[in-house]
Every structure is written in C-alpha cells, then in structure tokens.
C-alpha cells in the first residue's frame, strides 16, 4: 500500500499485548469492516481470534456475504500465514439463557421467559442489563482457557487461553461510554444475582491494561470530531485508548506541489492539454477544462483530508490506515485490509 509507506511500523506496539480490542467509531465509518480486518490481522501466522458483534445486526455475516449465524462461536475466516478467526453474533437473550442455566440451572424458566417476552422486556426497561450481558460474552471469551468453555469460575490458570485475542465490533461512539461503563450501569439495578456478579467480572476485564478501545474514522470532519470526543470519554472512564483507524483512505494521485497548484488554479493547462492529446483523446482543450475542474475539487478535498489527518495524528494515539476498496465485502476484501494492517505493524 503506497499510501501507508510513511507510517511507522512500531506505532502499534502499545496495543500488541492487548487481549480484548474494542472497536468503536461514528456510525457507518466501517467499524464492522475494520474489526473483521483487525481480528484477521491478529490471527495471522497461526493465531486464534474471536470477533464478537453485539448490535444484533449480523453485520459480520453480511460483510462476508454469508447467511446469518446462530448465536454461537464458529470459525469463519482464515488469516494469512495460517490462523483462524471465529465469529460470534452475541445476543442478550441467548446470553441470559446461558447464565440462568449456569447459575440457577433454570433452563425451563428461561424458555418461559423468552416466550413471554420477559427478556426483551427486562433488557428494554433496563438497557444496562443488556449491555452487561453483551460485554460479558466478550470478556468471558477473553478469560476462557482451553477445555473449559463457559466455566470461568473454574479456569485452571496453567492452560493456554482459548483465544489469542478477542475483537469486539462495538456500538458507535455516541453510545460507547455508556456501553462500556458496566459497573455504573447496573449500580442502580440488582445488587446481587447473576447480572451483578457478571458485571463485576466484565468490568475487571474492560478496565484492564490489556483491553484497548480503538476508534474508526474517515478523513471527514464529523467522524474526526467524534474520534477526538470518543477518545476523551474513554480516557475519562479510566479505560485504555488504543489506535485511531482511518478507513476508506484513497490513494494519493497528485504530488503536493500539484495539489497546491490545482487548488490555486495555477495548474499548467497547456501541459494538461498536451498530455491528453498525447494520449490520443479527442477535444483535448475542452476535456482539459473539465478535468481541471475535477482536479480542483480533488485538491480541495485532499487539503482538507491532510488537515484532518494532522488533527488525528495530534491526538497522540497510534494511527493506522485502511485503503478504500472498490468492492468491500467477502473474505478476500477482509484479508486485504488485514494485510494492510499487518504491513503497518499490527501483530499480537
């Protein structure tokens, strides 16, 4: 990726130790896509990672052009150099069923609750409960050791972790603070019982140094502003900010001198006309006038992007860039983006 050459490969280092990567950002900036790319990059070279989505939208399967998943973990993507990414579409209802069964052996009760819409109800009147159930799924996978699925109370510390890293495709910046602030979310709710204990355990993982919150952005003003605000909020909650992921980066076609000239309108029309004529195009004069307009637009855009890139760099977080792809779905697209991350030093 030529546009990434100037990135320093060491910038990822503070995040390399993390076991949980939480990916947020303004809506539509590419959180799901970036999270999938990150999970793949972290699995490369023989690793095992888990990608958890929590918004109940089956975004990952849509990205991979597959049919919707049941709410269980399953391997879905392979990483360059060997390595597997499993995917979990977490949903509060099945998470709750698991916990009721685990703690109370209340399987039948759970089913009755579902039938009555009680789970839906409880998670609607108390959105904190839903968030805790979802973060709990991710943090449980972070702590899980091989051969002890689901029983985090009895993990033998010696055996290896089930996953090298877990990546969460999280809610957008507007809701991320509330979502991750697990403890205070349930503070007003039940003081005992599964949800409460669960929240404590989840909070411990989320606050740990080994959890990083990454923010996806575009080179546009609103997403960049939300990135700055989001990072502040994350730090304010005592959580650990990770990298800024700039998505949909276009290749730079013009040198900076030409960008300046195109913006100022001083680009040499005659040489443009000559070039178009040399390429054998008809009406090179009029064509040049049209293309010059496009160059001007591009130059204005590029300078704006450079300014935003500078602002993002000044946030003091590692910055990673993902190229804009013409077609951004399917396993190959994810692997290409993962490759771009690996080139920029992303590793586990």
């Amino acid at each position: 990726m030529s546009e990434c050459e100037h990135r320093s490969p060491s910038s990822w280092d503070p995040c390399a130790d993390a076991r949980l990567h939480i990916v947020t950002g303004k809506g539509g900036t590419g959180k799901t896509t970036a999270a999938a790319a990150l999970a793949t990059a972290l699995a490369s070279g023989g690793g095992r990672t888990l990608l958890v989505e929590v918004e109940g939208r089956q975004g990952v399967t849509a990205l991979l052009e597959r049919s919707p998943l049941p709410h269980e973990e399953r391997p879905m993507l392979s990483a360059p150099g060997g390595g597997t990414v499993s995917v979990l579409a977490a949903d509060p209802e099945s998470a709750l069923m698991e916990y009721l069964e685990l703690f109370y052996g209340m399987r039948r009760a759970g089913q009755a609750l579902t039938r009555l819409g009680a789970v839906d109800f409880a998670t609607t009147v108390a959105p904190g409960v839903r968030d805790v159930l979802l973060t709990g799924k991710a943090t449980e996978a972070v702590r899980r050791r091989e051969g002890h699925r689901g029983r985090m109370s009895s993990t033998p510390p010696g055996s290896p972790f089930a996953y090298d890293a877990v990546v969460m495709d999280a809610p957008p910046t507007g809701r991320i603070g509330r979502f991750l602030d697990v403890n205070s979310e349930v503070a007003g709710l039940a003081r005992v019982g599964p949800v409460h204990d669960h929240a404590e355990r989840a909070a411990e993982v989320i606050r740990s140094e080994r959890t990083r919150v990454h923010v996806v952005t575009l080179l546009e003003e609103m997403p960049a502003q939300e990135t700055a605000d989001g990072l502040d909020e994350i730090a304010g909650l005592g959580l650990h900010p990770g990298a800024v992921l700039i998505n949909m980066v276009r290749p730079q076609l013009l040198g900076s001198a030409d960008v300046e000239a195109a913006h100022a309108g001083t680009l040499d029309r005659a040489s443009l006309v000559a070039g178009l004529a040399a390429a054998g195009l008809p009406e090179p004069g009029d064509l040049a006038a049209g293309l010059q307009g496009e160059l001007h637009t591009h130059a204005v855009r590029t300078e704006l992007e450079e300014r935003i890139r500078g602002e993002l760099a000044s946030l003091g977080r590692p910055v990673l860039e993902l190229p804009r792809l013409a077609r951004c779905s399917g396993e190959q697209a994810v692997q290409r983006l993962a490759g771009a991350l690996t080139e920029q030093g992303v590793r586990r």
Partner: protein
Amino acid sequence: MTPETLDVDGLLDDPARRVVVCCGSGGVGKTTTAAALGLRAAERGRRTVVITVDPARRLAQSMGLESLDNTPRRVPLPEGTPGELHAMMLDMKRTFDQVVEEHADPERARQILDNSFYETLSTSFSGTQEYMAMERLGQLRESDEWDLVVVDTPPSRSALDFLDAPERLGRFLNGRLMRFLTAPAGSGPLRLLGAGVGMVTSVIGKLVGTQFLNDLRSFTAAFETVFGGFQERAERTYRLLQDPGTAFLVVAAPEPDAMREAAFFVERLDSDRMPLAGLVLNRTHPLPEGPAARLGPEEAEQAAETLSCDGGHPVAEAALRLHAERARTRERELLLRDRLLTAHPGVRVTEVAALAGDVHDLTGLRWVGARLAGGGPATEGAADAE
C-alpha cells in the same frame, strides 16, 4: 433515464404547504437538508421554523443554537430578507416533561418526573426521540405561528423508525407485560398462561432488582392517567402527517444501503397515504459538462496507462485516473438512482453534489438550498465554501 425534477421552490412557496418532513437513513444529510430548506423558505418570504435533531456542533452554532433548546430562536439573516428563519434543537427530555406536566395534575406529574424509570424512558429509550420530534411538530403546527414548519428526523439506522417508533413506545408502555408486572401480585391478565407468575417476577426482579421493579410499578400507576392523552396526541400528529399540507422529502446518499432504505420509506408513505414530495439525492458526484462527461472510466484508465508507459505527462495521467474513478462512481450512482425509479416510477428527484468539506455555515446552507432548487447537479467548483 431522465427523472422528473422535484420543484423545491414551488414546494416552499405554496402557501398551503405548512409542514415539510426530511426523512432518510443515518448520516445521509437530513439535518443539512432541513436547515437549507428552512433558510431558502425564509429567503423566499416565509416565516419558517426548523426543528433540528442532533445537528453537528458547527452547523448549530452557525444558526445561533448553542445548546439543546426547545424554544425556536430567530436566526439572524441579512437585512432585507423577506421572511424569517427560526430554529430549535429538539430537547426530548424537556418535551417529554412538558407532555407529562400538561396531562397530569401537579402531584402526579411530580411522581412521574421523579421516578427513576422515567429517567431511562425519557433519555435513553429507543423511540422516545422520534415520539418527541413528532410531538414538537404537532405543537408548532397547532400554534399556527408559522407559515412553514420544517422537521429534521432523528438519526436512526432505518428511515422507517420515524414512523414506527412512536407507536412502538406506546405499545410498550401499554403492553401486557408492563401491566402484568405492575399489577398486584397474581391478578395480572397473564395468569391464565400458567407460566408461574411468581417465577417470572422473581427472575425479572433478579435481573433488574426489586427496587427497580417497585419504581416501575409506581411509574405505571401514575402514568396510567396520562397515557390516554398521550396516545391521542400522537394519533393526531400522525394524521397531520397525512394532511395534503404536509410534504415528505426522502433524503438518500447514493449508496446501496441508503437507497434501499429510501425505497422502503417511499413504499411506506404510499401505504400510509402520506404525501411524498420527492427524493433528495445528496452528496453525489456529477461529471463536468462537455467532453469530460462523455469520457468513460475504461477509456480514461486506458489513456492514463498509455501516458504512464511513455512518462512525461504525470499531471494528465493523474487527471485521467481521477476522472476514471469519478466516472465509475457516477455510473454507480446513476444505476442506483435508476433502480429506485424503475421500482417507483414518477418519484421526483433533486440532486445535491458533494461538497469538499462539511456544510457548517449559512453560506454552505444557501448553496445546498440552491442545488436543491436547481434540480440539476452542479459540481462544487463555484462554492468551495473554504
């Protein structure tokens, strides 16, 4: 395919037109469009109010809005502007509070407003924002102080939420589980289901805590008296949306998801007999007029290849690659537009080209307004706002 052009000025000038609603999926430009329309209507002589929801900070500031505020504030416009523009930023909690205060006696209102469940309901319940946007629209329309009310709709993934959410909220508040949980033990209507009332209550109690359940109970008891008035208001506003004096503009960005949402919304308006004025295609990438418009992406790419082999014309080569990309984008945009128009013939369209930067001041809004009314595309060259 040449779409029929949406006559925005005709729409804004019509004295019978009292409400314009800007809908669409997340981030497509609803707020920008609403503000631009409001400004244009004012500049064309109408006394206009714009209800914005979550505007970008700089845009809000440019209209003189510093914080959430339910009261319309007059936006200072150049002297000699024939109409007026007033703007407000929806404060959903404040709106909700007012509805409660209006429909309940003071003591009951206090009980409701102090309830901890009410806090959740009025600030973070999905659907409340939509409900309150509609409520505020109804109030402003009924006050009859304005020639034209332009409404922006809340950010939401799906455009349909604006129409669906208020009913969902109503159904929830009045729902059987709510009644069941809050009825005196054992007397609820679900008793016959034999699911074990005690068990359900106890599990929900374990989840949310018994204190919370108690709050919920007292909330429902107090809210019951307000609910009828509440529902009736919502129904009246819904009917207002069907009035011929209302016009819906569906805003979409030329991307598959947004266009799909736009098509759903067009269908929905039709089945709910709500008046669709047309489609705003925002942030498009039209080609410059002249031979550039006819130079296709493959041809441009090939010409760039030729130059790259010979070397010596780097700027022309870059210009051609840039054009190839833009022309490809344009092809996709037109394809998406035509697909929607084939499925929904007769939908009128207006197009607003993408500006290089954000739209965050009156100049930018004026430019967007002119594009909206101009019907045809134009590149931003003339209005780089920077």
